[in-house]
């Protein structure tokens, strides 16, 4: 097990180092995230009463779009100079690569969310009327739901034409139950009106099912040639 986890750690460390060095990737992503928030503010007037109710939905849609851009990038790095082949010829197990990429994406998208959330809160004057700490498990589970499938489908998209559009095309339909859960849970916490027990349970089930499915099928998809 230590061989695998060593590889996962090394790959994750390598990805973080690379991301840190080419800061233009993270900078452009942050700017993109800011633009999304601002544009949403024009489309969904933050001063209107209704906007507070739909803020839960807005914020997750914004995260989704930012995440898709990020997800496309992290695999793209492995295609330059055919570096992915170097991984494939080695005895390193494909799943270690998947876990490293998924964790890296999780961190990356998490950073974006951490950046966008205060902006949303400020622009939309949001204050959770329900238990605010509950937003944390929702964010963690929801982000993982997007990232685990996103990493898998981004890897699949590497082998298709129109790679960049394939990812959202595959990801969005399948993510709908998780999106619904994230949005409803967030809205419930902000409005303090409902309990989120069911949605948390759904997110946990979703995360478990698709993490297992991804780990089970990744090697098959990775080696398809």
């Amino acid at each position, binding site marked *: 097990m230590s061989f695998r986890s060593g590889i996962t750690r090394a790959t994750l460390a390598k990805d973080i180092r690379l991301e840190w060095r080419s800061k233009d990737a993270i900078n452009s992503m942050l700017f993109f995230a800011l633009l999304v928030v601002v544009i949403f503010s024009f489309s969904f007037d933050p001063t209107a009463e209704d906007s507070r109710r739909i803020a839960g939905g807005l914020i997750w849609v914004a995260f989704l779009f930012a995440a898709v851009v990020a997800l496309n990038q992290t695999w793209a*790095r492995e295609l330059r100079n055919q570096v992915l082949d170097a991984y494939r010829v080695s005895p390193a197990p494909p799943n270690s690569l998947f876990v490293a990429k998924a964790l890296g994406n999780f961190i990356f998208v998490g950073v974006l969310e951490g950046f966008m959330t205060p902006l949303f809160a400020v622009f939309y004057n949001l204050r959770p009327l329900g238990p605010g700490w509950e937003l944390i498990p929702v964010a963690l589970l929801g982000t993982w739901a997007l990232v685990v499938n996103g990493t898998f489908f981004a890897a699949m998209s590497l082998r298709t034409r129109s790679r960049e559009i394939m990812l959202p095309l595959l990801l969005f339909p399948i993510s709908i139950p998780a999106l619904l859960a994230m949005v409803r849970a967030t809205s419930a916490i902000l409005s303090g009106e409902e309990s989120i027990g069911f949605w948390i349970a759904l997110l946990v089930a979703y995360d478990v099912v698709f993490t297992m499915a991804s780990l089970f099928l990744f090697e098959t998809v990775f080696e398809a040639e």
Partner: protein
Amino acid sequence: MFPVIVSELSSPPPSAIVALSNLVKQFGRFAALRGITAEFAPGRLYALLGDNGAGKTTLLRTLAGLTRPTRGAISLLGTTDVRAACREVGYMAHPSMLYDEMSGMENLRYFARLYGIEDDAVCSEVIRAVKLDPSLERSVGQYSQGMRQRMSLARALLNDPKILLLDEPFSNVDLGSARDMVGLLAEMRNAGKTLFVVTHQAALLEKVADEFVWIEAGKIVARGRELEPRQPPAEAE
């Protein structure tokens, strides 16, 4: 400069280290490899020659386990499971297979991990073997082409493989670096490694290769010790 040693094999080689039987690889309608049957002995340097699109790269990728054959059999180091043999195989492609934003040492440290090698000394050693400086902090993206090819070769040597697959290692490399690399390859062959080198610059390997293999349209059309104008195939496979 490395002394260039002409190989002299007096006795026939022992059992084959690589054996191909009717190897076919098709990409949709395009047949890249059209039934290759051949055996290759250990401890030799094989130069694979042929025009673009002849199938040389596909052959190398199949041996490296990056592509599964459509039909036919491969035996590598005594096993038909190419992936299982990957610890003993080193592969170098024309793109560098390195991360441009990291230094040579950082790159190699990472790839060494993929083979379970955690000792930095191994990385330093292979970097020195290709005549580069392990402590060079410059990122690979800023290397010259010659340096990049050499670092790529170093990466392929990390796991001390028994079989080396090199796809156009000398292309776009200055003559001095190329000659250095040829010398290094000869050294490795003398140390018992088996090398398959795809190149368009056959002259570089003229004194070093044990055998030249000509590939055309997905088949081996000729093999020989000498680099001479190719005869019309008497025994085409």
